[in-house]
């Protein structure tokens, strides 16, 4: 079958690979219809998360049709139209039973790598390096889904393929940030990053009753999408002083909840960006935490900062003094999709959540390398490249 593979730093190619097969009784095989790029893939492609092997199949956000089921699968049958959570969780360990699915004890068969990096291993993720389990990704004709009864969700008839695609990762990641960031009615919420995840975090904050939601980015086409499809306010950080704007629009208090949806390759105007870029390239830090620093400084006293963007390991000039002296709650997580996907699909079915606009470019899988290049360079107004696997 065809699959989009990582072949080296900043190198991708579509290759012919073996089809997956059922390896465990709870597995299902999904025939992929649509898959999409994610900003966190860029960290893998660029070598910032150095646990990829040449030939690894990329991609973790997808939907499709059940093609085969293992003997212990009870929820799904061949032909079901499903969206699959990007994280692989067993559904039975203490973390899964407490709704913390991305921390599943059993989903990552390579626990030693992340235990060495972070002290404990989170769950596994499709197409997200050998540190996160070494699973083949979804930019392929077929994919094996372990724990199929837990990870795959039937799509309501009212939701089309393109909308459902983003229930795999972007939307539940946004919901994770707003929910675990404890957004409450009346709150002012600031979201850094107007990509797919930032937009979904803003939508989730509004759904949870936030009074005002402000999304910060530098790309006008993305900010325009936020205004038009999400209904949140916007700030262009290249055209205004974000901290001053946020103080002004919150009566001098600062946002109650600040959600960082940018991650380890943040951009910013000014010398901080050059400093972080130099330290990252010299491997003196693994991540560029520019947006996290800004969120911590902007957040109101006693507020919450939620780190939703993906970070690998170590950062420099972290404002711990602000966290402590302002009494902030600092929290982060990979997304606990299994917890949010059913409600997200219901919202999509009832027309309360719009996601299809994220798919600015729908391409055949053969154009995968070009799709990622456009997505990385943000050319032609690309917000997400979506791959139609059957061409």
């Amino acid at each position, binding site marked *: 079958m065809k*699959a989009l593979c990582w072949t080296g730093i900043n190198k991708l190619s579509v290759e012919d690979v073996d089809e997956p097969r059922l390896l465990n009784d709870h597995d299902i095989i999904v025939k992929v219809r649509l898959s999409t790029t994610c900003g966190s893939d860029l960290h893998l492609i660029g070598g910032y998360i150095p646990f990829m092997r*040449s030939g690894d199949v990329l991609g973790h956000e997808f939907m499709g049709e059940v093609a085969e089921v293992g003997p212990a699968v009870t929820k799904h049958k061949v032909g079901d139209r499903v969206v699959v959570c990007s994280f692989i969780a*067993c559904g039975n360990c203490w973390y899964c039973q407490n709704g913390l699915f991305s921390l599943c004890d059993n989903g990552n068969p390579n626990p*030693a790598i992340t235990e060495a990096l972070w002290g404990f291993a989170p769950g596994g993720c499709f197409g997200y390096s050998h540190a996160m389990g070494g699973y083949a990704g979804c930019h392929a004709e077929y994919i094996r889904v372990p724990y199929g009864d837990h990870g795959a969700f039937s799509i309501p008839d009212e939701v089309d393929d393109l909308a459902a695609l983003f229930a795999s990762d972007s939307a539940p990641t946004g919901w994770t940030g707003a929910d675990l960031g404890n957004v409450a009615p009346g709150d002012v919420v600031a979201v850094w990053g107007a990509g797919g995840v930032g937009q979904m975090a803003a939508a989730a904050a509004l759904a949870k009753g936030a009074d005002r939601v402000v999304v910060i980015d530098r790309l006008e086409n993305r900010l325009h999408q936020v205004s038009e499809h999400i209904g949140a306010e916007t700030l262009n950080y290249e055209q205004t002083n974000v901290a001053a704007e946020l103080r002004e629009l919150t009566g001098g208090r600062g946002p109650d909840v600040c959600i960082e949806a940018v991650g380890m390759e943040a951009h910013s105007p000014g010398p901080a960006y050059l400093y972080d870029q130099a330290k990252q390239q010299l491997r003196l830090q693994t991540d560029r935490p520019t947006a996290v620093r800004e969120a911590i400084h902007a957040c109101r006293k006693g507020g919450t900062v939620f780190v939703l963007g993906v970070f690998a390991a170590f950062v420099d000039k972290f404002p711990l003094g602000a966290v402590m002296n302002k009494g902030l709650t600092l929290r982060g997580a990979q997304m606990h999709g299994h917890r949010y996907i059913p409600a997200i699909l219901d919202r999509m079915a009832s027309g309360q959540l719009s996601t299809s606009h994220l798919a600015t470019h729908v391409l055949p899988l053969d154009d995968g390398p070009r799709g990622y290049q456009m997505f990385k360079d943000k050319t032609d107004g690309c917000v997400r490249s979506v791959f139609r696997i059957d061409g």
Partner: protein
Amino acid sequence: MADDHRDPAGIRELIMNRVTRAALVGGLTVGVVAVRRMLRQMPKSLQEPKDRWLVLTVNKRQDEIAPHNTWPQPLADLGDEVEIELRQAPGNRGTEIAVREREPGQTGPGGTTSRIAGRTRTQDIRSALRRTKQLLETGEVLAVDPQPHGRRKPTPGGALIAAATNRAGREGVL
């Protein structure tokens, strides 16, 4: 008296070679002694006690761990060379399974060599605990290979990752 016929430069070279060799041997000896002394004087917090329990919590009641007094297969396979204890985890978090060797394994260079070769009892225990947890909680041990993949170019980084993932179930902080 062959040396009598050497020219002065040759004699100087011979002396220098012997001095260099003696210095190397001396330096190496001092180094080995220093490292051994450092290891002996290492703070307790950096030394791993030989009788450490490896413990993992399973989201099951204690009576579900070994019904009919039979351990799950991965633990049973460890045989009589290990001690196994069950403890109730606090806050309804399940059962803690603790395992350790009855006779602590080899330490020092021999132990390090065994660990690199993947042949220590501690590695067996880690793997058995993880597989036991999966069997009890999910009914299966998650497989990951074979996975579809494209052409694997032989690179040092790829070889390192392959080596790390081959051992990943037997290593870690557990």
